[in-house]
């Protein structure tokens, strides 16, 4: 390397601040110059792009922000998606059972109502779903706990109460949904008055139901 390297000990001709790659190697033996910044403004399209991005961002935020309170987000499900509208939709008299099911039930019982083997019982083809609606309303209102046998399999888990989260209309809608839409399920529909009646009857209940309590009710 001796003779070759010597040659480069003189300053190297550079073009537009570019040191040749060869010089780079020679200098790598020691140190190249410390880096610095050029003051080129950058391409114009980038600054146009920045403005466009800000406009898109402002539009998105304005459309979806909703109110500045601590009410829970329901999801950008509807056109115009603001929270007020979403809330109105769920409170209107035509509540969609499918939408309540999708947001409250499907995470455990799955979108198709088949449940998760060993963890969450299925709703499709389940005796509790297709049987006495009064029992089913009680389960949705107060939840369910402990060992339970569904479609020939034993489960031991806990289902939360929905008493305070869902209104009578919503509970009636979701019950009608699971009784008629999931799998082969075909059972009679119920109305909100039944939910209201049972809610009144069981308003003192604090704990989830157990399978044996529900058996006792049925007989």
């Amino acid at each position, binding site marked *: *390397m001796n003779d070759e390297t010597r*040659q*480069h000990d*003189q*300053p*190297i*001709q550079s073009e537009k*601040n*570019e*040191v*040749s*790659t*060869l*010089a*780079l*190697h020679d*200098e*790598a*033996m020691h*140190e*190249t*110059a*410390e*880096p*610095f*910044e*050029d*003051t*080129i*403004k*950058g*391409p114009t399209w*980038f600054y146009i*792009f*920045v403005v466009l*991005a*800000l406009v898109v*961002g402002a539009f*998105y*935020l304005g459309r*979806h*922000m*909703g*109110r*500045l*309170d*601590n*009410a*829970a*987000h*329901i*999801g*950008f499900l509807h056109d115009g998606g603001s*929270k007020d509208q979403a809330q109105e939709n769920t409170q209107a008299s035509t509540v969609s059972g499918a939408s309540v099911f999708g947001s409250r039930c499907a995470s455990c019982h*799955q*979108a*198709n109502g*088949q449940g*998760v*083997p060993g963890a969450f019982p299925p709703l499709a083809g389940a005796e509790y779903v297709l049987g006495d609606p009064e029992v089913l309303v009680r389960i949705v209102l107060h939840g369910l706990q402990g060992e339970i046998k569904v479609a020939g399999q034993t489960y031991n888990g806990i289902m939360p109460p929905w008493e305070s989260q869902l209104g009578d209309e919503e509970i009636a809608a979701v019950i009608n949904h699971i009784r008629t839409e999931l799998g082969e399920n075909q059972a009679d529909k119920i109305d909100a008055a039944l939910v209201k009646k049972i809610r009144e009857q069981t308003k003192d209940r604090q704990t989830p139901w157990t399978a044996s309590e529900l058996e006792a009710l049925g007989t």
Partner: protein
Amino acid sequence: MTETVASPRTQQDSTLEHSKIRVSADEVAAYDHSGRQPVLLGFFIAVVWLLVGTVLGDISSFKFDRPDLLSEQAYLTFGRIRPAHLNVMVYGWASTAMFSISLWLMPRLCRTRLRWATAATAGILIWTLGLAVGTVLLIAGYSDGLEWLELDGQWADPLLVAGAALVGASIWRTLAARRVHHLYVSVWYVAASYPWFLIIFIAGNLPIYQGVESAAVNWFYAHNALGLWLTTINLGLIYYLLPKIIGRPIYSYWLSLVGFWGLALFYALNGMHHLIGGPLPSWMIATSITASIMMIIPVVAVGINQHMTVVGRFGAMRYSPALTLAVIAAMSYTAVSLQGILTALVSVNRITHFTHWTIAHSHLGLYMFVTLSLFGGMYYILPRVLKKEWPSTRLVRAHILLVGGGMILYVVALGIGGVLQGLSLLAPSEGFEVSVTSTRPWLLMRSVAAVIISAGHIVFAYHAYLLAFTHRGSLTRQPPFFELKPVLVKKRAP
């Protein structure tokens, strides 16, 4: 050869035209020497943690293929091994190596020796002790239970805070003693990272949050740990390595400004996009998605800036492993950020949330960007601090090919598997089990990739051992790729 202008001795001298500042090799060597102790200590500890984290990651991955593997003892179960892998990699490998990199960069960029080097050394040791305590407690079953914040709040976190504060004090004391007028872009990133990290880490660990608040603060922290700590120091390093190795200035000071302040402004609001669909107020989710979309501004700015700095000189990557890794890391930063913006959109998030897509995304960020950038930094920094060259060209090549190839396989396989899993989860006609079984071949590919990457880590650790603890390096007078004949250069100096 670098004596065109005498090196600046005072603040006034440094107001010279920035491009004319030339620093002599001796002077730079003196800066490197001032931080030698903490820099080498940090790198040593980082490589040890890298190997520990690799084993933990491999076990976690294998458990997906064989769920009954190593499940007899509680401390070997997935719920403990996997968070241990995350914490060891983030706080052990990446953060400790980043301490060293910042302690090496600051004296050079501030043109002064490192101040309070002993405090920095003590900081690294205290940090490591805290992490060791936290990891042992984690494996033993004592976890704070929040992702990225699992380390014990009572025994581990105070040590981590003290350690980072001591290193940060050394960084800021050096900054205060600077002998330059103009602060180079890397300084902004490195110096800002320390207060940012301390703020988010303390805020994230305060034991005062409950329920939804806790989830919100959890993701505020976890996202910012990436954005205001891991990303910033590595961007600072890449901003230093690219122009330094290529011998060209950074393309545009203005784009640097947009990149830095855009990141500072928008990144801090991004965290809630991890909770889309969760019971948070709409304005929190919407603000976060908006800020995620806005991240396109700093990302494109940094992307243009770094690309235009290197463009036309990509061939130089053949002669510098540090440059190769820095360029791949810079490209990965752009890629992972664009992927992140895409994933934050509600329509995409519906499919990818709760799937392996997220794991692929985080490895694209933490590995292809952060870890490769750290490897590049070590390839560049260690020879200068140790005054020895990496002994083997073959080992460097093997390392880069193994980790690069392995990680591409990892990200592609898990990315595809994640989307298929997400689509299966959404399909009403398919049961939950279908979504689980559909991911199995992709998870197997992930394990294969994990083995390849682990081999790369072993090669790197062995090579670093050869460099630091044997005399083989001192026989090599040239950088490992020096003997290759450059083909790019048409015209040579007379």
